[in-house]
């Protein structure tokens, strides 16, 4: 039996989160907490430990990105997860980079919506990921250290 690790599940509310939660059997036996973007998904996340809602952010609103970044730094310093698991998007990317700094292992599953190329967040996280999964075979073939293990959806 593996040791119990503290795992941070990070994903934007919506499709990214839906994909992440379909993987719930992956973190059986470990303790989890969640970071997401909107409180409309609070109920859905109840059984996955403490939930942090950091607000929406994307490249178009830099001020919001900064705000979310500060919130994420606080979360990382407080929680110190052993592992980050994310399906994206921006918030997952931010949490992965912060997690890396504090020594967490990074698991990234690129969203199925990225068919022809990896997501922007995915391309950034690719450099630091310890396990990087794509959901299209050809994307895994195009990139070093990207694996295809199937589609979540």
């Amino acid at each position, binding site marked *: 039996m593996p040791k119990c690790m503290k795992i941070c599940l990070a994903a934007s509310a919506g499709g990214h989160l839906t994909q992440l939660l379909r993987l719930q059997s992956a973190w059986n036996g470990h303790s989890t907490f969640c970071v997401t973007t909107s409180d409309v998904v609070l109920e859905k996340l109840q059984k996955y430990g403490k939930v942090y809602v950091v607000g929406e952010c994307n490249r178009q609103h830099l001020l919001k990105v900064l705000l979310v970044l500060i919130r994420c730094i606080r979360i990382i310093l407080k929680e110190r997860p052993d592992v980050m698991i994310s399906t994206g998007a921006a918030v997952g990317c931010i949490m992965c980079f912060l997690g890396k700094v504090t020594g967490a292992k990074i698991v990234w599953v690129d969203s*199925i919506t*990225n068919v022809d190329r990896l997501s922007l967040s995915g391309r950034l996280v690719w450099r630091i990921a310890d396990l990087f999964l794509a959901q299209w075979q050809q994307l895994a073939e195009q990139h070093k250290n990207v694996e295809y293990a199937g589609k979540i959806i």
Partner: protein
Amino acid sequence: MIFLAVGTQFPFDRLVKAVDVAVTELSLGEEIIAQTGEGSYVPRNFKAVPFIDKNLFEKYISQASSVISHAGMGTIAAVLGYGKPMLVMPRQQKYGEVVNDHQLAIARKFEMSGHILVAYEAQDLAGKINQLKTFVPRERDSQHQMVAERIARFLTEISGEQKFGE
């Protein structure tokens, strides 16, 4: 009942209007329930609400004979989950409906695999609605368990290396 859903992030009048026009051309013999977001087009042939909550959304999908929607992954996943025939119109960047063409790419992929029907342009829609009546979507082979197992294996591998209580 046919359920029409355009998603919540941006309006998608091109689809709502195309369905409205198609309804006058075809005799559907079925009611349409529509979620149309913050669009400005007001359909003449069916009632539309801007937003519905998640539970009602699921309920409509489960009760619908078929679903017409934008090519949002969340909607596609939900509809395929219920095994319902589905027709999507991808939002396109060139029409200012979305910031990139990922819906176009996703629609093509799922169309090729026989899971959904796709109307790329408004004029294709009526014809596709006709096809929808007899369309049987290919069953989805769910591989999420394989992905979860891959991650579980990775977690087992690293749990031996991790240092605790530093």
